[in-house]
């Protein structure tokens, strides 16, 4: 391994956690704490953008693992062969950027909304960022698992303490669902590691070493099933999606942004980084199941979304639908579709995050999220309505906005291998269109149903949304730099030669 002079990846992972310590002296001064936390998150974002700006230069230097721009490798728990290995390739760079960005959005949207116990809120948010960064950068399965579970803990408190409605029920459900899947994955990780040790005598959890383990077909199937379950719960795929609507609805806005923007992506990322490469044959065998679950998810979630009366819940269900597309792209395991899935992961994070922000802002003002309570907002809060329309259109895949790119690539890629799936998924887009347009129409354009005193967006919110909208537009109009970024890793994953 090439030692880096500066451990950038470690900084990326632990900078937020280090900032937690900085916040402790500011315990009594929430405003100061907010500024400090925002500063560290912006610094984090700047770091990732800096990496993005220089990735071509980094790619020119060969690291020990092909396709990886940066690597860090240190010994950690030698008795178990667990190493502290972080690696950054194009896919993780995209995810890391999304993470840094989503956290900036999350903190800005909480700026006024979180009044009580603000410092604790920020500490949890920062700890969460460390966990998610770790998930996207770990190349050692044990280390990955550690971050994977650690990120649950702050989310448990974020939903439980600052949530609404049945927050306690929702947060426990979220925690138990995800933990249940993860624990079986832990066993599979241990088993895989033992098989490898048996075959080679090398005790390791390193991904690149475990990739070379030969497994009997049925063993592979069992291990993959455990991984798949853990990732499917995070994804979430039908029928293990039931935690998501509750958790999203009852979480504070920042929590929803992070849940939709990042936590769901850890599931798809895990499948791309670990599930498929480690167990290719098993993954191939289970592809029909994966397709079926994804399609059911898309159609079922769309139908359920149509019946929702709570805006936030509706958007939560739309997330299940969108993640179904990501799932289809992964299941196709084909360069175009997989690129589409990865791009779509970022797109969905940006778009749905923004939609959750918008609903959160409305909720702060009107103290309700019921669709039936609104109407005619276009006249009353034109700025809010504009952005709501903008992101809703992005969400249904209007060409020129970001989701279109991802969905197009996914469908184009899938069409080659399984046209039927692509056709059915296309039907899903139409369903999405129906419920999103209905939502916008009811909220923004109908007659006013309840006299509500609403103020329009304040400058902070306006700046936030405008930035997200610009990013969205950029990703939709000019996705080439992002596609370039993930081209090599995708090719290496699928095995089309270097």
């Amino acid at each position, binding site marked *: 391994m090439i030692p880096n002079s500066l451990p950038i990846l470690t900084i990326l992972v632990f900078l937020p956690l280090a900032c937690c310590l900085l916040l402790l002296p500011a315990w009594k001064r929430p405003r100061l704490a907010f500024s400090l936390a925002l500063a560290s998150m912006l610094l984090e974002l700047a770091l990732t953008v800096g990496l993005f700006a220089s990735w071509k230069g980094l790619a020119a230097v060969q690291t020990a693992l092909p396709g990886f721009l940066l690597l860090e490798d240190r010994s950690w728990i030698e*008795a178990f062969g667990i190493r502290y290995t972080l690696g950054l390739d194009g896919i993780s760079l995209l995810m890391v950027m999304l993470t840094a960005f989503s956290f900036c959005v999350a903190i800005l949207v909480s700026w006024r909304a979180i009044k009580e116990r603000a410092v*604790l809120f920020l500490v949890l948010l920062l700890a969460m960022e460390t966990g998610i960064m770790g998930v996207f950068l770990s190349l050692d399965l044990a280390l990955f698992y*550690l971050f994977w579970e*650690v990120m649950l803990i702050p989310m448990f*408190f974020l939903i439980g303490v600052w949530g609404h409605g049945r927050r306690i029920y929702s947060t426990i459900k979220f925690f138990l669902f995800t933990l249940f899947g993860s624990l079986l994955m*832990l066993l599979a990780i*241990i*088993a895989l590691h033992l098989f490898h040790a048996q075959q080679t005598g090398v005790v390791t959890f390193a991904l690149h070493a475990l990739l070379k383990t030969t497994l009997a077909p049925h063993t592979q199937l069992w291990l993959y099933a455990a991984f798949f379950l853990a990732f499917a719960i995070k994804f979430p795929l039908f029928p293990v999606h039931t935690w998501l609507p509750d958790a999203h609805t009852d979480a504070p806005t920042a929590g929803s942004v992070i849940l939709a923007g990042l936590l769901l992506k850890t599931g798809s990322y895990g499948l791309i980084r670990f599930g498929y490469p480690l167990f290719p044959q098993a993954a191939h065998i289970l592809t029909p199941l994966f397709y079926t679950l994804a399609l059911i998810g898309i159609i079922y979630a769309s139908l359920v979304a149509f019946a929702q009366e709570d805006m936030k819940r509706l958007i939560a269900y739309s997330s299940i639908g969108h993640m179904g597309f990501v799932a289809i792209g992964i299941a196709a395991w084909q360069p175009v579709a997989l690129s589409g899935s990865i791009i779509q992961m970022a797109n969905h994070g940006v778009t749905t995050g923004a939609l959750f922000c918008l609903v959160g802002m409305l909720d702060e003002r009107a103290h309700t999220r019921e669709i039936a309570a609104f109407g005619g907002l276009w006249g009353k809060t034109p700025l809010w309505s504009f952005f709501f329309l903008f992101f809703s259109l992005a969400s249904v895949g209007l060409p020129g906005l970001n989701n279109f790119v991802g969905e197009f690539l996914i469908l184009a890629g899938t069409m080659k291998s399984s046209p039927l799936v692509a056709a059915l998924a296309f039907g899903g887009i139409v369903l999405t269109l129906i419920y999103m347009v209905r939502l916008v129409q009811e909220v923004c354009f109908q007659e006013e149903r309840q006299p509500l005193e609403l103020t329009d967006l304040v400058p902070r919110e306006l700046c936030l949304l405008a930035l997200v909208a610009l990013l969205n537009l950029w990703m939709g109009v000019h996705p080439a730099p992002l596609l370039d970024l993930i081209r090599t890793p995708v090719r290496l994953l699928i095995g089309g030669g270097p």
Partner: protein
Amino acid sequence: MDMITIPAVNMTPIMPEIFLSVLAMALLLINVFVPSGQKSYIGYISFIGVIAAAVLVGTGWGMHVESFNGAVVQDNFASFFKMIFLLAAGLAILISDQYMVREECNHGELYPLILFTVVGMMLMAAGTDLMTIFLGLEVMSVSLYVLAGFNRENRKSNEAGLKYFLLGAFSTGFLLYGMALTYGATGSTRIADIATFAAQQSLPSSNVMLLAGMLLMITGFAFKVAAAPFHMWTPDVYEGAPTPMTAFMSAGPKAAGFAAALRILLVSFSTMQADWSQLFWVLAVLTMTVGNITALRQDNIKRMLAYSSIAHAGYCLVGFTAGNPTGTAGIMFYMLSYTFMNIGAFAIIVLVGKKGEPNGNVMDFAGFGFKHPALAVAMSIFLFSLAGMPPTAGFIGKFYLFSGAIQKGYIWLAVIGVLNSAASVYYYLRVMVYMYMKEPTEEFDWLQVSAPIALSLLISVTGTLVLGVVPSIVLQYAQEAIKLI
């Protein structure tokens, strides 16, 4: 006239035991002259004694000395467990003082009794003769019966003492009977001799007497470590005993039971591993499941932790079932982790309780998180560790134990284990839900943190986190410790 020759006995292996016994007896004497308001000093002296004993144990690390004609041994296995006992005793002593003063039963005998318990436990870990182990077990048990009923003004504590005594005596009967049968079958009480005998048999499990002896001994130990279906005494005793003693009992004596059982099974009955592994498979599944399922429905937090401690014994039994180096080292590491996290959690319970503990329910923690942030964070760390979440000691411990089981091919046992672990998360989370997500009903203004408890919490939190983040520093000792077995 014949001279009676006294054989040269090497006292080194039992130096810590001798030291603690002498100290405890001296303290009993001194106690008579200490006025009742100043019994804390006995506690301080005991604590220093525990540290001194730990130093004695530590200096013996790496040596292998047998003594008393092979009745006791000083090896790393014993030393590792002795450290666990001393840690448990030290932490228990630290949290006792404030509790005992509050409950108005601050009798100085408490601390010498704890020290005697430790001596018994140490003999159990160091004994290489069934008789030594039995003596150790009795010294430990008799002291514990008294400790459980120590709060003599309190009915529940009396009940705990009596119940523990009756059932403990009953289980000792099993154990002793098993030892007697084994002696009858093999002609020796030496662990090594029994092993030699068993190795000479073509099929040792066909020797009914030997098999029955082994089974009865396992039954006896199962009582001591509270494995289902021999766990019935645990909840009542743990609930009724003074809280610091509950903390102590859940960690120390349990580890001692494991230590003795490990040595007997892995050395004497290693040729019969196929037989006892199956038995432990059943015991492990029962213990984990019964402990966790029952804990789900508990409102009293001491009772909840009692059932949880049954479940944790179940996880250790997974290591027994595996019976391989990974599983065995896993048990040792787990018991060390468990000592930190469980006594830590009990320390918080001691702090939150009022006199007589009328507020011993999970609900009484409502809003605690924002009234006493530091204590609540400590409690959360302990609970997450008990639940097996990284990056805490509990996670590494479970990782270790389940690795051992998978290594031996007990996949389903590991699956049942993690499912249990997932279920257990619910009742640990419940405490945190009350601490952070419910409105406070109390001001917690009676709560005071004395310096000893603060120290014990500091040690527990550090231990829980350090073992979780950089376990290597202890893992190597655990692995060295099992080499000699």
